[in-house]
């Protein structure tokens, strides 16, 4: 079998596995999030936490709980990072600076997991476990909670209540993320991923030199890192590190895990609104966008256009031998189509057009299937816009899932869509105007611009991957990107919950002849088109100056 065909089979088996879990896993998540019974351990948490689990919250209360939890998380993690060098690191670590601690705290609380630090030389085991990994769970659960609140907005009528954030948070962590993580982590250990608390050990190599073998509770962190679409690696090189991704099939499992919640949530959505066809339509759009993207990526990486890839004879720079080029390209597509941002190969060294695909995937708003929860609410916002555009064409008041989309709803949806491009383009613009920010670029010319554009795109979309040549551990980038991550995470959440509140309070509109059916092929096509056009028009000039200028000559 040729390398290309092996890649195609790799992709096919992934798609088949995702299709197989879509229904049972989606249904399971719906049961978890709609059930009325609390587990004993959950009751203990609610009692010790001092929250009333049966209090249904208004959208404002729900939002306040989300924000309170996130603010407290940022402060707690920031504090922990500032003192972690004192708590049993396995080697001597200097104190993390204030700007880097802020960046890292913002990064992990927002599900971005951008790493301006290098895990093996900056962090100890305690902070990785009790600081970063906890946010891997929590930030993923917050995303799902907000998405489910929006789904309830569609499902419920004439109420101002959207559910209880504390219950959603706890249930997602304990009943969805935790069991999956335990199973995945044990499988990972079986493949050679490490899980120990050793000090760093020096060994004498065959060639007569010395090498330091690192340790750490890696497998447990790796599992939730992919499942929660977090992506913050235990080590600097993330899932390319043999201790984080030891073999070819852990690579497959990692890609599967980072996609499985995103691709299953549309089923949960369909269940909860009582019309499974609507869920199929949404997952179809995600599937079309994802397949289109991965095919283009495979073509670009496989044909290895460009000077250095031609000189090499393949786009192997920045890839691992065990994964090869097709599997690395599939990982890169998966990680940027979701908000994961873990990498098993280095995007900065991809072909120009392959690199452009990773950028485009994030710019799409990470909706195919997107991050845990954020992908679902992202694509539902696009669906709202699509219905509105279709309504304009025929001159009817748009409605989606029995809810009228009036000025208030559209304002929330539009604000949501404008937030990320505004952050990305303003941020990149400011950085390009500042000599200290330009000095961070490793590559020159269009590729240098791509590095900065990638950084802001990754931060605003809470992805976390990088064109890693950029020297991002500077005061400017730490504060700028940290701020962009926070705004890129919580402004959209405000708009989503506002939209949810306004939808929930409506009377349902009965479907009429003029209602656009939103479960048919026509709508799938329209939504795909809107997703692509909204993105293409917004980012085309920036892409033209970066990867397209580099790749098309």
């Amino acid at each position, binding site marked *: 079998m040729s390398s290309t065909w092996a890649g195609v089979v790799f992709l096919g088996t992934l798609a088949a596995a995702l299709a197989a879990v879509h229904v049972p896993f989606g249904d399971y998540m719906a049961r978890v999030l709609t059930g009325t019974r609390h587990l004993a351990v959950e009751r203990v948490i609610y009692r010790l936490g001092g929250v009333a689990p049966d209090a249904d919250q208004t959208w404002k209360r729900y939002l306040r709980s989300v924000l309170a939890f996130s603010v407290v998380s940022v402060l707690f993690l920031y504090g922990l990072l500032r003192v972690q060098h004192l708590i049993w690191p396995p080697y001597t670590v200097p104190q993390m600076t204030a700007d880097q601690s802020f960046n890292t705290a913002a990064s992990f609380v927002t599900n971005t997991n951008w790493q301006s630090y290098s895990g093996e030389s900056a962090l100890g085991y305690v902070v990785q476990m009790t600081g970063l990994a906890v946010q891997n769970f929590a930030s993923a659960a917050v995303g799902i909670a907000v998405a489910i609140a929006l789904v309830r907005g569609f499902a419920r009528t004439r109420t101002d209540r959207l559910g209880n954030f504390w219950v959603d948070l706890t249930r997602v962590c304990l009943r969805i993320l935790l069991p999956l993580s335990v199973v995945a982590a044990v499988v990972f250990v079986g493949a050679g991923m490490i899980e120990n608390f050793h000090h760093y050990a020096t060994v004498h190599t065959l060639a*007569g030199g010395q090498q330091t073998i690192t340790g750490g509770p890696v497998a447990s962190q790796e599992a939730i890192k992919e499942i929660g679409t977090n992506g913050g690696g235990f080590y600097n090189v993330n899932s390319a590190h043999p201790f984080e991704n030891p073999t070819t099939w852990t690579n497959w499992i990692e890609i599967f895990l980072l996609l499985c919640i995103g691709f299953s949530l549309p089923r949960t959505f369909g269940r909860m609104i009582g019309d499974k066809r609507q869920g199929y339509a949404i997952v179809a759009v995600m599937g079309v966008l994802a397949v289109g993207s991965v095919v283009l990526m495979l073509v670009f990486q496989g044909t290895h256009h460009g000077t250095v890839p031609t000189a090499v004879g393949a786009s192997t720079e920045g890839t691992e031998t065990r994964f090869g080029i097709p599997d690395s390209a599939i990982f890169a597509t998966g990680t940027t189509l979701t908000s994961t941002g873990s990498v098993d190969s280095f995007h900065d060294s991809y072909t120009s057009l392959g690199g452009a695909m990773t950028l485009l995937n994030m710019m799409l708003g990470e909706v195919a299937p997107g991050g845990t929860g954020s992908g679902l609410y992202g694509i539902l916002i696009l669906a709202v816009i699509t219905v509105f555009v279709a309504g304009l064409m025929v001159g009817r008041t748009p409605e989606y899932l029995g809810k009228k989309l009036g000025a208030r709803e559209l304002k929330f949806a539009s604000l949501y869509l404008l937030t990320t491009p505004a952050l990305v383009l303003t941020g990149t613009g400011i950085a390009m105007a500042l000599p200290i920010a330009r000095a961070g670029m490793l*590559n020159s010319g269009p590729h240098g611009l791509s590095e900065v554009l990638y950084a802001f795109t990754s931060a605003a979309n809470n992805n976390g991957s990088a064109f890693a040549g950029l020297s991002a551990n500077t005061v400017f980038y730490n504060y700028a990107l940290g701020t962009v991550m926070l705004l890129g995470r919580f402004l959209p959440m405000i708009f989503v919950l506002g939209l949810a509140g306004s939808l929930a309070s409506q009377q349902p509109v009965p479907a009429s002849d003029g209602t656009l059916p939103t479960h048919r092929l026509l709508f799938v096509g329209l939504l795909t088109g809107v997703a692509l056009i909204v993105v293409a028009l917004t980012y085309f000039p920036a892409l033209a100056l970066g990867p397209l200028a580099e790749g098309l000559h």
Partner: protein
Amino acid sequence: MNAVASYLRNAVAALRILLLLTVIVGIGYPLVVFGIAQLPGLQTRANGSLLTLHGQVVGSRLIGQGFTDADGKPLPQYFQSRPSAAGAGYDPTATSASNLGPESIVDTLPDPADKASTGKQSLLTQVCARSLAVGRLDGVDGARPFCTPDGVGAVLAVFWSGPGYSGTVTRVVSLDQACPAHPFLATYRGVAVECARFGADYSKGQVVPIQGSAPARPAVPADAVTASASGLDPEISPAYATIQEARVAKTRGIPVAQLEALVARYRTGRDLGFLGEPRVNVLRLNLALDQQYPYTATR
């Protein structure tokens, strides 16, 4: 006052829930996984899949090593790993890829007045230089497209008489060939090609890489000339192992056929026929060599 109290209550609840989650998923969860990882069969893996020689730990099956002497020169008795961008090479405390882009083709030349200055090599020049070095070490042709015979990038700065690269060519410089190097092309469009001088400003010229006549599939395999993603890649392609066989066999004084058999034993195909790529674990192979055919230095 009421609003403040409500915000405070909210924040306190948030903090309590966060601490409870920290106990469960931040402490309990990794400890449970750690506990399971202590089971026989899992434990050696959880501890890093370490390899030993004569009772001494020499490394990990999963972590690549450099097989060079203290000066970075390849030791001919060992199979060589891929180029590494992790620290000084294969340093697990400084893992890294090169992060150089596909059009990184123009070098910053070293300052001839400063002995310590190394300049900044473009990715293209690194690839060309490695190809040449591997070719020399293993006795195969090190030529590659876009590379000069002296192992740097074949890249010209072409200066034109008119704006926007129009008119006639007035001057041509081979950007990656520092003077007094002999330019890889005598003339370009009828103009003599110059070598490049440190510190000169060639930014007005059009950058033109020259592909040349080297085969599109060079004799030195792709993984031998490119840095891995982790900088710790434990494996090389079977093709790269093959071109090293003759040299290792000769250095150790064993028949090539025996070595081929050994390499074949450490060659792994695609898992399940479709996962990843075929590969050879370099440390395990070299360890087997040292165990079966000990090398006695004749230096």
